[in-house]
């Protein structure tokens, strides 16, 4: 039953937004819709933790703890950025930057984007999952190129081409997997549930190669380093609620696909194979992201590179393996989604106020927008991984798993790069937040919706930073159970 709500609401919201003239009213309806989805996904995760059997229309769809976890993530972030985009779009329309029609176009794209992301986590067939990930790229390309400036069109073009080229490799990996499943496994279906049951006797050589293709393919979408080049351009040019969704959740859905394949591969190939790959890509992502963040001038690109860094941390978490490593990786996915959404939304209103995203020109945010300034500096500390916030907890879990598993070099490099990134983020953000205010900027109070969404996110980080709620802990443990197989 929940499935119908989760997929249905975004679809009909998308259709409704086409006919509606005044986008302000629709914004509130939209936010309400996503609130319903959030509640439904919460109820879904409650049922799963108490392992109530769910009513699923056909074997085409499959929901277990892992997909419910990602559904919850997507629902939460899309709800909060839908609140934020009400105010964001209203002021855009008022300033005349975009027409009324374009605003309703935005809402249509926003709902389609959310729909495709939900579809990825829900679908059972790996081929259809590939198609839906490809659809997310196509739809979000419009959102990236929304303002039709030179830079955003260039970013959108790069985004589509690089992601499609990357995803082609992922499809080749799926084909190879399908080959071994049909040749050695004996069944002719791409459904994940069937493949998992038969994964024991696949041919290891072909599955290894298939996993390489999958990792590089979906790694492009997830933003692992050699294939991350589209990420900074796309995230810095998109509208801030969209880039919050993009880096908060879209990267994670790509990683969800990689995890699905990892479960299969780990059943027939020794575990260290996938773990070394994850650690290798994770450490490179951390290193390169650290380099970029240090000398970054644009605030949104800095946040984009920190997404690359955190994706690297998640992949290192998976690489370290063990209950603690995977738990830490999943928990880090949640924390990063929430913190990054906070930072992008906050940075979005700052960039809109200062009309530039060059950090050398933005000074004294705490005087101009006291509320957002305080939230931004706290968010910067959260992003950099300092304690009262949740990212510190998940980083410590991943590190403990690393030391537990004995891969000291990986853990030491992890600590080194996280240290450099901490220094870089604090350096940039304290230069931006503090200092005296440039004369041209007047002190005005921000919109209510922006403040509401930022407060919600900050509370979330703090709650999960102090101690993880029992229900959430059991929920992640179920997901970890599935991954460890």
């Amino acid at each position, binding site marked *: 039953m929940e499935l119908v709500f989760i997929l249905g609401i975004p679809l009909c919201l998308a259709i409704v937004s086409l006919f509606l003239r005044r986008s302000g009213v629709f914004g509130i309806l939209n936010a309400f819709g996503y609130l319903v989805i959030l509640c439904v996904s919460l109820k879904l995760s409650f049922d799963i933790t108490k392992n109530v059997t769910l009513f699923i229309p056909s074997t085409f769809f499959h929901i277990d703890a892992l997909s419910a976890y990602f559904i919850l993530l997507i629902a939460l972030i899309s709800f909060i950025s839908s609140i934020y985009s009400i105010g964001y779009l209203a002021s855009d329309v008022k300033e005349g930057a975009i027409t009324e029609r374009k605003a309703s176009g935005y809402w249509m794209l926003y709902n389609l984007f959310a729909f495709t992301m939900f579809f990825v986590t829900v679908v059972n067939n790996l081929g259809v999952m590939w198609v839906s990930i490809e659809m997310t790229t196509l739809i979000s390309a419009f959102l990236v190129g929304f303002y039709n400036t030179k830079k955003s069109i260039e970013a959108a073009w790069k985004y589509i081409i690089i992601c499609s080229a990357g995803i082609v490799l992922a499809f080749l990996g799926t084909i190879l997997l399908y080959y071994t499943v049909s040749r050695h496994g004996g069944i002719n279906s791409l459904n994940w549930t069937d493949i998992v049951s038969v994964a024991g006797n696949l041919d290891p050589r072909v599955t290894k*190669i298939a996993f390489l*293709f999958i990792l590089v393919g979906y790694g492009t979408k997830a933003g692992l380093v050699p294939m991350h080049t589209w990420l900074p351009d796309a995230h810095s040019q998109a509208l801030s609620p969209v880039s919050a969704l993009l880096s908060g959740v879209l990267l994670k859905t790509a990683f969800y696909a990689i995890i699905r394949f990892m479960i299969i591969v780990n059943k027939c190939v020794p575990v260290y194979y996938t773990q070394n790959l994850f650690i290798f890509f994770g450490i490179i992502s951390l290193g390169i992201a650290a380099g970029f963040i240090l000398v970054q001038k644009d605030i949104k690109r800095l946040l984009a590179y920190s997404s690359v860094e955190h994706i690297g941390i998640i992949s290192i978490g998976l690489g370290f393996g063990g209950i603690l490593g995977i738990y830490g990786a999943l928990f880090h996915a949640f924390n990063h989604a929430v913190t990054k959404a906070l930072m992008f939304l906050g940075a979005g209103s700052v960039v809109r106020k200062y009309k530039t995203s060059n950090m050398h020109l933005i000074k004294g945010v705490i005087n101009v927008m006291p509320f957002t300034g305080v939230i931004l500096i706290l968010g910067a500390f959260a992003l950099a991984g300092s304690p009262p916030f949740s990212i510190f907890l998940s980083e410590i879990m991943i590190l403990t798993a690393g030391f537990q598993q004995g891969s000291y070099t990986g853990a030491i490099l992890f600590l080194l790069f996280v240290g450099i990134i901490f220094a870089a983020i604090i350096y940039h953000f304290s*230069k931006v937040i503090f200092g005296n205010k440039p004369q041209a900027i007047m002190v005005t109070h921000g919109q209510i919706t922006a403040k509401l969404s930022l407060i919600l996110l900050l509370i979330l980080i703090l709650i999960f930073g102090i101690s993880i709620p029992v229900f959430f802990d059991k929920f992640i443990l179920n997901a970890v159970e599935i991954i460890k197989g």
Partner: protein
Amino acid sequence: MLGWLLFAGFVLSMALVVTVGNALIFLIAWEIMSMISYFLVIFDHTHEKSVKAGIIYIVMTHIGTAFIIASFLILFKYAGSFDFAAFKSASRTIPPNLKHIIFLLLLVGFGTKAGIVPLHIWLPYAHPQAPSHISSIMSGVMIKTAIYGMLRFIVFILGIEGIWWGNLILILALLSCLVGVIYALMEHDLKRLLAYHSVENIGIILLGIGASMVFLKMNLPVLAVLSLCAGLYHLINHAIFKGLLFLCAGAVYKATGTRNIEKLGGLIKMMPWTAAAFLTGSLAISAIPPLNGFVSEWLTLQAFFLGALSSPGGYKVFFSICASLLALTGGLTAACFVKAFGITFLALPRSKGVTEAKEATFSMKFAFVFMMLLTVLFGLAAAFIIKLLVKVSGFIFGLNTEGMNFSINNFSLAIPQSGAYLSTPLIAIVFAAIAGICFLCVHLFAGRSRIGSYNTWDCGYYNLDARTEYTATAFSKPFRIAFNFFLLPYSKTEKIRESFYHVKSFKYEVFTTFIFRRYVYDPIISLVLLAAKQTRKIQAGSIHMYLAYILITILLLIFFYR
């Protein structure tokens, strides 16, 4: 209002750090403490300098915490849980060479926070920028949480594995003492001068602790307890007199608006209470007898003497050299505080702004009096406090300390091994009695004193004003020449011209090159930035290159990683 909130949070986090029993929560409290003190350092963020200081501070402490996290995780690997008890029981099973690594990690981690020399870079930046009452807490208490951490984790939990641990700490402590005091002598910003003295006093505390670790390894339990008592006692005394000094510096800054002692002068006439408080603080810090600074230095010297007495040949010379360098530090501190007190408070005011300085408010005066009483009390009641500290260090080392008592009847300290006695109350009484007797004799025999007043001797030059007074730079010139191999001083002179031909005045400024920043930290930072600039070339904008990256990665992976 925000200031009070941060202040309360700061004190709470420090209390948490020292009372918590689980390593993970210790880490959380530790980082929250650094974060809140970062916000306090950046409190008046309109100045560019305080933002820069805040950044250096939080980055250095975080790097230190990274080291601490690494050592905790190694311990966790063996202990299975983050509790101190589990750590302590696991420390027996850890192989020795791993213990050395953990010790080094902990030393660097807590050393950055304590401000031991190679890692002290942030201290002279962070403390002066914070509001004075905060920098007095930061200097007095926050640095000591690092010492608590060292004692708790290195001595109590890990247990001392090699004798070179104590020696390493002793050498670092000596380095901190000398470097701290030499840079303090060259410093003309009052609060930065006090910050450098915090580095020096941390060195003295670590001298005590390092010596106790060496004695423990040489299984001389009595000596180990004595030197640890000396270290802990100096820890408390430093908190008191440094807090007092920072409060006075704050009062001076509030009254005159500047911290540069070259511009101050003659404040004793306008701010008598602050002057008296600063004088007591300087006497205490320069280890002048009746006050508390002297007792802990005397105890450390006694510990070194006993160490020299009862240890084999090589260590005898090492401990005596430690003692003499400690005395050298004491002498230099006395010189530095004569300069600080003399130039700030005595003689004539050197700039107009200073003349209308007003005395501190009542609440500040109350704080001064309270702290002055504390310095005197902790000096006189030394014997009683040592009794408590003996129990504390007994607990830390896990020895029973019934047999060792270093204080006879709550008044005087007695070191049984070296037969040396010290009773500060007696010193104070004898000193006062003698001064009284002399005053009486002088008045009785020489009759009423006829005191006329005239202006200072000026060799016939008619009006002598503040410009001929000795300045702080001049005062520290002999030291600059004596230690120029370390300070590498360079000076800038500037002619301020009224017209092309006529030079109105000279501006002469002397700077010292900070060796550690120029030859250790700047190269590392420029190296990292250079590497970062190279990585920027990856994102050079052409889509073709990006696609080529993907193709190359997949080809390499397939052919090389099977």
